[in-house]
């Protein structure tokens, strides 16, 4: 187990290094020079040369990469072209919004999908199951930002439960901040919850057909007790892995949904910075999101091994 863990960790670090190289190279090969967007077209050649030297653009690309990587590791994330402030400072406020959104979405997915998945499987073929299956199929087909638009319309414009576009900061009290984040988190969570319900239901049903469950019945277990005592532990293995991989999906979803609700988080900053060609900011956000994705996939892999002893040592 320790040996596999070490191997996996090494792979994780390697992947992250590769991601930094890709993020750096991708935004360095773009035609055009940041100096023209900072100084404007009327800059003299001397001004351009001075700025290029100040930004380190006169160095070869590998030196610039090492310099950038060194900065990342020591907490110097570079400087935004557009806002003329350090990227770290710029992003520190965004992160609290996106982190809250992501955590809330994840909690919602778990809270919505586990009970419903178990319920649907317990009463397979019954009315509840059939209604859930239909609802599930429809929910899965509504993209998260369309769900967001619907939520804003119904709860914001018609029922006036919140004011669309208004920004609530954490400083205004945690209660109102979490309330502000609820509908965006729901929009991110809905399609993924439907998928989780479907997976959990299928997983429970396939476990229920196994021999060891027949044995459990023959020892006098009712369906409910067989479900809780024997089935769930095994049926949860694929679901837990799926949930860990869901983190990547939540990050992608929050980029779009932040735009719908006007939340000043990482996603909104990413889209704005792409529009402004503010590449130092784009690079860091991409790297941040990629790191979260890679680490959560790593966690998914580890969890899989912890939950399923048959896979250990492989």
């Amino acid at each position, binding site marked *: 187990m320790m040996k596999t863990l070490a191997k996996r960790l090494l792979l994780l670090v390697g*992947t992250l290094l*590769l991601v930094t190289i890709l*993020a750096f190279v*991708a*935004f360095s*090969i*773009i035609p055009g020079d940041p100096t023209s967007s900072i100084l404007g077209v009327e800059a003299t050649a001397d001004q351009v040369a001075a700025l290029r030297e100040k930004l380190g653009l006169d160095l070869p690309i590998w030196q610039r990469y090492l310099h950038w990587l060194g900065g990342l590791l020591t907490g110097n994330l570079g400087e935004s072209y557009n806002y003329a402030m350090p990227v770290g400072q710029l992003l520190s406020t965004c992160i609290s919004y996106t982190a809250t959104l992501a955590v809330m979405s994840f909690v919602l997915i778990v809270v919505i999908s586990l009970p419903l998945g178990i319920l649907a499987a317990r009463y397979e073929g019954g009315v509840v199951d059939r209604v859930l299956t239909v609802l599930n*199929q*429809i929910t*899965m*087909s*509504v*993209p998260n*930002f*369309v769900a967001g*638009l*619907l939520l*804003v*319309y119904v709860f914001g*414009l018609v029922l006036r439960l919140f004011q*669309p576009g208004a920004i609530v900061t954490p400083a205004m009290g945690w209660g109102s901040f979490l309330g502000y984040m609820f509908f965006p988190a729901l929009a991110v969570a809905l399609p993924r919850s439907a998928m989780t319900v479907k997976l959990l239901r299928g997983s429970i049903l396939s476990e229920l057909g196994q021999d060891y469950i027949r044995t459990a019945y023959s020892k006098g277990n009712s369906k409910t007790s067989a479900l809780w005592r024997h089935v769930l532990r095994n049926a949860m293995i694929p679901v837990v892995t799926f949930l860990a991989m869901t983190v*990547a*999906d939540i*990050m*992608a979803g929050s*980029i*779009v949904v932040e*735009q*719908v609700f006007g939340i000043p988080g990482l996603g909104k900053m*990413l*889209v704005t910075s*792409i*529009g402004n060609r503010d590449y130092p900011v*784009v690079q860091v956000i*991409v790297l941040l*999101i*990629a790191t979260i*994705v*890679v680490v959560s*996939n790593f966690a998914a892999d580890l969890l899989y091994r912890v939950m399923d002893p048959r896979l250990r040592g492989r």
Partner: protein
Amino acid sequence: MRRKNWYARLGGVLTVAMLAFAVTGFFWTPYEPTAFDATSKYAPPSLAHPFGCDQMGRDILSRTLEGAGSTLVIALAVLVIGFGLGLLIGSLCGYFGGALDALVMRVCDALAAFPSVLLALVVLAVIGPGKYNVIGALGVLFVPSYARQVRGEFLKFRDRDFVRSAQLMGVPKWRILYVHILPNTWPVLLSGLTIGFNNAVLAEASMSYLSIGVTAPDVSLGRMLNEAQSVWFTAPWCMLGPALVVVLTILGVSMLGEGLRERMRA
């Protein structure tokens, strides 16, 4: 069994209906999609304008028809590129195996771990927005997942007797790959195609909604949703048409795919 047939059939009907809707947009729209009409600014849905009109008096139904057509073309083009290259790479890797196969699959695994919307966003940030850039970026990003699927299928059939006998008879390699093995893989690959189609529609709509996808003269469902959000207080119906088409298309195609998968299992 009967219920699943019903599933595939309803999905099929819905898919055909949405395809017909999108194709209609190429030939006929009730009004000119870009025509301004000062008299019908912010007109709510009515018999003359079933989905209403926007702030410039443009007919939403006409725009939805055109947008659905362009979203369909983009999704299909993405599938052609992604599936085409994925088929080529996956079939060669699956059939021949070896070190190159191991390397290619490592890269595919790494890429497939990232959500495609995220990767496409980065690519478009580098190459800039626009219809053809969206097609190119999404198409290339779909290659890894298809390559993996195709490889798995080809690996399954590589050592079967019918392939062995074809090899012994001296059938050329390309013929074994694409005439002998490929037809057997269709059931699995078809359901992969339905999932890919939905992902392409979803990705295009998301990116155009973020205004880094399809850009101005071109219409797309995602762009319409973006524009609708700005007139949201005065004309909420602007959202209805494009949202409905996106949801119904994805619903239809996913039910069809589901039905196909169930039929294979039976």
